[in-house]
């Protein structure tokens, strides 16, 4: 860093410093705390965030640094500025001098200027552009003497635009139109899959999740809001209305039930239900989150920075942050575990909504000194920040008015930020790369006029489908993504858009595409979140006792956006492919490339199941290899590709012949996977008709846990074992146990082939160890009490044998003596899938499963190109 600054300073000496890049940040960092927008801490009436006063009073004399008192003070040895902290460095002083000597030019930040509709530029190659977007792109390319790329091949483009607009490969309705690009695009825009795809993009911003967050992370019902977003996109709800309903439907005249559901947007903030937390503290955090999120989503502003102090770089004072706070401070929700207020939609479903407080309950909003909610200062009234145009004339000064202000024609940011976000999803990068920051620290637009042309058009009708269609119809969008070494060197990041974008698919699309290609994907829209297959134990990381119970039927194969989203324990394959966990608003996902992704798409049973189904379909085809390519990549393989795939198929058959059981497992992969579908209770517990165990409350001596041990002199009785502090009618104790330890034994008979995936449903508040035929099968160091399924360890799973088996348990009380103790054991296992000796055909099919797994992992498959 030091050397970097030196280098920068050296440059600064040579040419006048740039105000935006060099001077504004320096002043912000070193001066504005006392000479900034914040009138309370302002010293000597001097502001250095604007310069009218400073130039009038001789603090800055443009062109003459020697006469400027600013320079005199920062170089004064006895009374230096700033008076505390380190002195300005020689380089910083030199930079200030050079800037003043060069005229002390300052400028408004581009993004705060009103949006003006720019003219469409003339170009030298008029036959390339298909619409105005292309004139802007081509104009820049011509300036750099770079030629645009040719159009992508038909099927490549068809796959690209289907993945972009619907998050899936094209469905049959779209495929029927593949020869007419515009009709094909229209079919995609009309598909219900369109709303699902763009809803997910929006839900990242809305920090949507199905749990409350923080430590306990309990379930909450807010999926009706998710469904509202899907419908809004499918119905092409204009973006201004989309905005107003989400932020303030409750304040609009006569809102419908649907409108009110939209306010769930800001009810996605987290709720802390941990014992002893101050509800007001977390209500306050939720309000701050709403302001920060609103600022980022609609205006690309980092307003959250101003909660403790005036924004260092952008025009939002500490006071103004709390004036924004005042708009959001009058809702009835207050970080209560019940998540009230809710809107009742049916007998079973209530969803979280915003509700304005009654007039007599209105809160006074105060500035929190240094952002601390325990040190409230001056009271403030709701107001929009002074740096932006005022509220629309007819708007009320409340949350509704604020929402209307966001989408007013005078707001310089909302339209720019929004079109930029849509553009980025389709074109691979934003015109402003820092989609989340349009402030002075954000990146400059690569095509400012194009951005404004799109924004000005969008402001006219706020028509999202029209905007998306405009982009995908452009020649710029349709370009081939192949890149020459020369172009790669000139423009590695594709800032010029001289080629089509090529990037890895989003987490959801990686999964959904695999399911779609396999013919597994359910088309069911809407409804409560679902629980597709997930590895055992992923949900056991927190105190929460909610269980992941694998969904039934088609709910196992719903689109990824319907997967239950738990903040503290997100669905693993989504996390590995960079999906956010809903803790904070995520404007853009940072795309990564890691070995964990490779492990996921190769080994995650969900992907493997897709491979099996895909192979089944392909194997019926005359040319299975070609069918695999067509199903996944929407194209025919080349001759070399075909040969390579067939070679892999042949080699895999050879491997499988050496281990036929693997072939048998592969052709029945899905059936084997869903062990829960074949579960059978081997030892019933107290919930039904508990079996009798042999038990002892004093040390039975060596060998007690082996199969051979003679337990005939032990007591006999069923669960519950233990005693309750208070009599509990619903769970009566059947076998009294009040000592420190308890020893249990039971014998069960099993037939070959043995069941699998043995687990013990156990209700207890104690710790325990389990042995199967003398083999240690489970150790539970006490983490929390409750009724849970405990999966036996690998040794334990293998210890069962045909014939008589003995399960032995040693229980050790965890809590204090006299505080109540209970133990109720059961045993459940999954009946085996009958695996036959594979036929010749099945060897071949099993090998196609492995090939399909390979095809699903190709770079091309994982990439939108």
């Amino acid at each position, binding site marked *: *860093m030091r*050397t*970097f600054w030196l280098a920068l300073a050296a440059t600064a000496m040579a040419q006048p410093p740039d105000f935006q890049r060099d001077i504004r940040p320096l002043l912000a960092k070193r001066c504005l705390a006392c000479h900034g927008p914040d009138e309370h801490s302002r010293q000597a009436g001097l502001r250095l965030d604007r310069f009218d006063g400073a130039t009038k009073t001789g603090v800055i004399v443009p062109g003459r640094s020697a006469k400027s008192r600013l320079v005199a003070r920062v170089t004064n040895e006895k009374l230096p500025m700033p008076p505390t902290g380190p002195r300005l460095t020689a380089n910083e002083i030199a930079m200030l001098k050079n800037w003043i000597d060069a005229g002390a030019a300052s400028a408004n930040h581009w993004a705060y200027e009103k949006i003006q509709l720019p003219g469409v530029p003339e170009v030298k190659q008029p036959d390339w552009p298909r619409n105005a977007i292309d004139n802007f792109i081509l104009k820049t390319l011509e300036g750099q003497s770079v030629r645009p790329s040719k159009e992508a091949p038909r099927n490549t483009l068809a796959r690209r635009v289907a993945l972009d607009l619907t998050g899936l490969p094209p469905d049959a309705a779209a495929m029927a139109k593949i020869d007419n690009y515009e009709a094909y695009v229209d079919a995609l825009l009309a598909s219900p899959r369109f709303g699902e795809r763009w809803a997910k993009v929006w839900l990242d911003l809305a920090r949507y999740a199905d749990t409350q967050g923080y430590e306990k992370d309990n379930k909450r019902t807010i999926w009706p809001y998710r469904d509202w977003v899907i419908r809004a996109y499918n119905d092409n709800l204009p973006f201004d209305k989309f905005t107003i309903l989400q932020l303030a439907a409750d304040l609009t005249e006569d809102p419908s039930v649907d409108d009110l559901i939209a306010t769930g947007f800001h009810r996605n903030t987290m709720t802390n239900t941990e*014992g*002893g937390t101050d509800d007001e503290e977390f209500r306050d955090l939720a309000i701050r989150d709403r302001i920060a999120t609103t600022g980022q989503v609609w205006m690309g502003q980092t307003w*959250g920075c101003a909660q403790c102090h005036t924004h260092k770089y952008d025009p939002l004072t500490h006071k103004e942050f709390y004036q924004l706070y005042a708009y959001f401070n009058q809702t009835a929700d207050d970080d209560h575990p019940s998540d009230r207020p809710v809107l009742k939609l049916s007998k079973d479903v209530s969803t979280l909504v915003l509700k304005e407080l009654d007039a007599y309950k209105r809160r006074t909003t105060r500035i929190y000194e240094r952002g*601390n909610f325990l040190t409230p200062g001056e009271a403030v009234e709701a107001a929009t920040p002074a740096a932006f145009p005022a509220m629309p004339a007819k708007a009320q000064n409340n949350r509704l008015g604020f929402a209307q202000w966001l989408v007013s024609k005078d707001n310089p940011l909302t339209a720019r930020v929004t079109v930029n976000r849509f553009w980025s999803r389709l074109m691979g990068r934003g015109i402003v790369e*820092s989609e989340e920051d349009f402030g002075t*620290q954000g*990146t400059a637009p690569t095509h400012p006029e194009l951005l404004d042309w799109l924004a000005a058009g969008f402001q006219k009708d706020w028509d999202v489908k029209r905007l998306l269609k405009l982009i995908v119809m452009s020649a710029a969008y349709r370009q081939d993504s*192949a*890149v*020459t*070494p020369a172009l*790669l*060197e000139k423009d*590695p*990041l*594709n800032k010029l858009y001289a080629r089509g974008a*090529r990037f890895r698919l989003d987490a959801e699309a990686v999964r959904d595409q695999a399911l779609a290609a396999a013919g597994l994907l359910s088309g069911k829209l809407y409804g409560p979140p679902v629980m597709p297959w997930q*590895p055992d*134990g992923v949900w056991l*990381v927190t*105190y929460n006792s909610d269980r992941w119970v694998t969904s039934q039927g088609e709910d196992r194969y719903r689109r990824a956006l319907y997967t239950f989203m738990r903040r*503290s324990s997100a669905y693993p394959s989504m996390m*590995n492919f960079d999906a956010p966990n809903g*803790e904070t608003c995520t404007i853009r996902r*940072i*795309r*990564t*490339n*890691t070995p*964990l992704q*490779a*492990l996921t798409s*190769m*080994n995650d*049973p969900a992907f493997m199941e897709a491979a099996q189904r895909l192979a089944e379909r392909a194997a019926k085809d005359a040319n299975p290899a070609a069918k695999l390519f067509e199903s996944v990549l929407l194209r025919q393989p*080349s001759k*070399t590709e075909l040969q*390579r795939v067939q070679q*892999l198929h042949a*080699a*895999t058959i050879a*491997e499988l012949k050496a281990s036929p059981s*693997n072939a048998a497992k*592969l052709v029945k992969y899905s059936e*084997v996977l869903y062990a829960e579908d074949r579960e059978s209770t081997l030892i019933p517990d107290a919930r039904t008709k508990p079996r009798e165990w042999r038990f002892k409350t004093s040390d039975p001596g060596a060998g007690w846990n082996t199969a051979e041990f003679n337990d005939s002199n032990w007591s006999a009785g069923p669960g519950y074992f233990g005693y309750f502090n208070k009599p509990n009618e619903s769970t009566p104790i059947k076998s009294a146990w009040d000592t420190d330890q308890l020893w249990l034994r039971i014998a069960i008979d099993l037939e070959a082939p043995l069941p699998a995936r043995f687990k013990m449903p156990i209700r207890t508040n104690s710790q325990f160890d389990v042995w199967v035929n003398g083999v240690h099968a489970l*150790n539970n160091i006490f983490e929390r009490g409750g009724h849970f399924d405990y999966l036996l*360890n690998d040794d334990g799973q293998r210890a069962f044998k045909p014939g008589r088996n003995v399960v032995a348990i040693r229980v050790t009380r965890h809590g*204090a003596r006299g505080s109540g103790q209970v133990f109720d054991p059961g045993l459940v296992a999954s009946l085996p899938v009958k695996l036959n000796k594979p036929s010749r055909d099945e060897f071949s099919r*099993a090998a196609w499963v*492995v090939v399909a*797994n*390979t095809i699903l*992992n*190709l*770079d*091309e498959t*994982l990439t939108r190109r």
Partner: protein
Amino acid sequence: MKQVLANTRRHFLQGGSLGLANLFLAEAQQKPARAGKAKSIIYLHMAGAPSQLELFDYKPELVKYNGKPCPDELLKGKRFAFIKGVPNMLGTPYKFARQGQSGAMMSELLPRFSKLADEVTIVRSMSTDQFNHAPAQLFMHTGNSRFGFASMGAWVTYGLGTENQDLPGFVVLTSGGNNPDGGKSLWGSAFLPSVYQGVHCRSHGEPVLFLSDPEGVTRSMRRKTLDAMKDLNAMERERSGDPETDARMSQYELAYKMQISVPKVMDISKESPETHALYGTQPGKTSFANNCLLARRLVENGVRFVQLYDWGWDHHGTSKRDDIEHALKPHIAECDQAIAALLTDLKQRGLLDQTLVVWGGEFGRTPMRENRGGTEGAFRGRDHHPYAFTIWMAGAGVKKGLNYGETDDIGYYVVKDKMTPRDLQSTILHLAGADPYTLHYPYLGLNQRLIGPTDEGRIMKDLLI
């Protein structure tokens, strides 16, 4: 991993794009690091913030004032998480004694670690500016109290790469039944390329999710699929000209190697009974002790940065479950044995000289007894206290038997040799062989650094050999 790194760098130099990274990396490319004294780092974070006043920072004056109301000047303008009104002072109920040549004062709760007083540098003058768990943990490990910044382990592996090509360079292990409050962001790579993010290894089931081949797929079948994938990807690479395809294939090869190397290193069952007795470890459990032993195995195998989070140190005293008696005592007993074992074991194996071990929480605990809701409960505990807390460091490049820094008579403020998280970060990077001031990554118009935008973080030369 080294190979991946080398590939990565080559692409950048060729002007290609890779993953999330951009061309700036070439410009930001770190000079070959000088050899750091610490080849590996083990960072033991006690999530929740253990009480320095019960463990390391002995305050007889505070004991004298036990039960007396807290003076007004200590409360004015202060924010506490839970303390309301005027709390009473709380002297520690535990005995302290001088230990070893260094004469370090340590609590009776640390019987084993006390014996290693002459191996460690104890810093009693840590001070932070965050007093809630998640922000304070984020500040400690990412240099920023908000979400979205790269973690220390990511910075270290970014700056220095890793020694073992078959294991991730940055491994995270958690215990205590919960992830730390700051969540997975504490080991994220944020704006740094994702190869530098921490890999969270589990001690139940597969150490890394989806590490095993699917049922029915053998390792030799997997090798053949990878070979086919490589050939098919090469054709796509030829068509597209995109170097990202090569990077993806490298990740698949690394994944293939990890399938063997990770389970091997994560299996502690082959360790000797003596070792298990030393640490208090039991194979198959999730425990801090197991993680300490795993940390030794990982650094032994060339992992650069091993980050442990042990949850459950937030002793507020609201109930028996979080007081400084019933809850702290058993927890510190497990911890005491494990940290003493780790240092002893590293030393016996000659690894301590090249491994930096850091232990600490995200802030300290108040000298006052917490009075949640304004009334004193039946159990004793302390609220969050950012102004003063204790950490210790040992191993590579760190002085042995040093007592550094002092707090006032009641342990409220630091009065001598204050050290901040930024100082600690600077010092750790320095020991690892990176220059904390120049190790940076350009992102969104700023040169991001672990130690933040200003140069206030100091390399604590006083602590170093």
